[in-house]
């Protein structure tokens, strides 16, 4: 028997009971939609996070004060902790302590806004070291020159502003040489950064940079750092460098018990692993939910196939009388079940793709960045094959029952 005829018969049969067919595949549709959404949104989130980290260079190590955050409240704690200080930075700079350190820069974050002749804007204000930023982000000065180590030492009142900040405050006129105000203190703009957009977690265009010493002394009145950024000599040396940093800082802080660490270290690899672990765990959990939904859906398919076989007993008898073999009948009902679940899978894939698109858009809005929607082709193929497989498995028994019907009995069936 021709496969095309089989498909045609199955299609006619399913089409005859549209409502029943649609209700039957609902479970499958939901299951596959869930697969798609989980895989797609999971991957979008992963891509987004990994992409952001990826922009920062694999050599980068970030040391933050306080305990490693396990939840949102811990992050605030990290900003308030004052465990990273000048002497720590000096110790880390010592080649005997951390031999593979290429460069290092402390950073502080200044909350607040900037203003120039009546225009006010709220950028991200960092006390930092431009040298390291150049190495990390590949940025360069559009106009003027970046401030130097000498400026940092002197706690000079100088700032570098990002392209967007410049536009907000100065429009099209020159910015370099002008004085802007942060917390009522005057700072001279020495340079603007060429537009580059989002790099890593930072929108460089939206940044204002000033010497961290200046920020600590005149704006924040603190003597600790919010972050210390370290560059290892190469990505391969990151792990060794992390070990050295931990040892050095524990020595500096007289810590013997690792669990009492008053600092924590973030590396690209660490974050990548964390993200993958979270996404992986989520995927496994939801896969179980999906599997259950497919199982329930499959049982529904089996049930409706039994009904269909019974309803069409006479048809089976007729086909047998006309020369259909057991195999032909079995095949026909199997194809019907597979077609049914396959269609459920297809609808699920389409719905899932739609929801994922909306989901990644919403995620982007929530995170304040653009989350690129990626259609998970592998999940789509997996979804359709899994649903077809469900049809095969749960259609097998009803199809066998149909094939084994006695032709004479079947023809007499009322």
């Amino acid at each position: 028997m021709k496969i095309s005829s089989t498909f045609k018969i199955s299609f006619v049969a399913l089409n005859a009971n549209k409502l029943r067919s649609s209700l039957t595949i609902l479970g499958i549709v939901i299951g596959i939609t869930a697969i798609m959404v989980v895989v797609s949104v999971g991957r979008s989130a992963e891509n987004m996070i990994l992409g952001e980290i990826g922009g920062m260079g694999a050599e980068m190590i970030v040391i933050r004060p306080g305990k490693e955050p396990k939840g949102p409240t811990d992050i605030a704690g990290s900003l308030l902790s004052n465990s990273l200080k000048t002497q720590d930075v000096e110790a880390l700079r010592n080649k005997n302590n951390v031999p593979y350190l290429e460069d290092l820069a402390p950073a502080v974050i200044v909350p607040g806004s900037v203003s120039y002749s009546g225009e006010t804007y709220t950028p991200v204000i960092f006390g930092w070291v431009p040298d390291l930023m150049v190495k990390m982000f590949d940025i360069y000065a559009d106009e003027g020159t970046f401030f130097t180590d000498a400026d940092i030492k002197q706690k000079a009142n100088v700032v570098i502003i990002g392209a967007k900040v410049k536009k907000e405050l100065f429009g099209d006129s020159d910015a370099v040489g002008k004085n802007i105000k942060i917390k009522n203190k005057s700072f001279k703009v020495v340079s603007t950064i060429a537009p580059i957009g989002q790099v890593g977690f930072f929108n460089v265009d939206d940044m204002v940079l000033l010497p961290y010493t200046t920020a600590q002394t005149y704006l924040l009145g603190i003597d600790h750092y919010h972050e210390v950024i370290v560059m290892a000599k190469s990505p391969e040396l990151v792990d060794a460098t992390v070990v050295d940093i931990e040892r050095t800082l524990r020595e500096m802080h007289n810590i013997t018990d690792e669990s009492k660490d008053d600092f924590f270290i973030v590396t690209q690899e660490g974050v990548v692993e964390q993200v993958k672990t979270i996404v992986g765990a989520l995927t496994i959990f939801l896969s179980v939910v999906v599997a259950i939904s497919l199982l329930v859906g499959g049982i529904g398919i089996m049930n409706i196939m039994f009904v269909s076989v019974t309803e069409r007993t006479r048809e089976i008898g007729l086909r047998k009388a006309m020369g259909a073999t057991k195999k032909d009948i079995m095949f026909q009902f199997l194809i019907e079940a597979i077609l049914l679940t396959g269609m459920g899978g297809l609808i699920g894939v389409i719905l899932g793709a739609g929801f994922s698109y909306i989901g990644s858009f919403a995620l982007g809005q929530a995170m304040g960045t653009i989350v690129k929607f990626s259609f998970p082709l592998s999940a789509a193929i997996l979804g359709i094959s899994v649903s077809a497989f469900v049809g095969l498995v749960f259609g097998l028994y009803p199809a066998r029952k149909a094939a084994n019907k006695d032709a004479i009995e079947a023809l007499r069936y009322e």
Partner: protein
Amino acid sequence: MPLLEIKDLKKIYSIDEVETYALRGVSFNVEEGEFIAITGPSGSGKSTLLHILGFLDKPTTGEYKFSGKMIDKYSENESAVFRNKEIGFVFQSFNLLARTSVIDNIKLPLMYSDIPEKNWHNLATKAIEEVGLSHRVHHYPSQLSGGEKQRTAIARALITNPKIIFADEPTGNLDTKTGESIMAIFDKLNRINRHTLILITHEKEVANYADRIIHIRDGKIEYDRLTKNGKNNI
């Protein structure tokens, strides 16, 4: 060589160790081109006989030769292939597939044959012409009268050009006039197209279209005789 040779055919059903004889030893031959009516009261075993002759059932004992071949050793699969190739069935209740057009209903046996799909349409068109339904090709069974339904079923039985056509009470669900028109088609198929026909009926008028009547009662042949037609025909 006769087309069908059956010798001492017996069919015993055992249900709960109670044996019921449906056929108690039936023997006769059918020549190619014959038109036979099997008659008898209900429960006489005529349906069982038709099922055995049509490869839908197997005798408990006895011989059945089709074109000289013993067929009692045929597997279920071989029987199906054989039914498809050599046998056409027409049923009392038409057994058309709803939601399937006349032409697709007629093509049904071709689905299980090895006839290439490109020939299907021509074969179906030819079969439709034979039964005079060319104006109803794309209609659905629900749009047909009883007579038209039965003609569709006859066209379906004809399409594989089988050696023999079995009709089980083909006029049983039709009024007298329509029944006559259906019998006229059978008559034509036999006398002009030389199809071998065996039909079951309990109506005398219907049986008289045949050349020969085999009357069965209690699982045995009561009489086997030529009709007026038969005498003229031979």
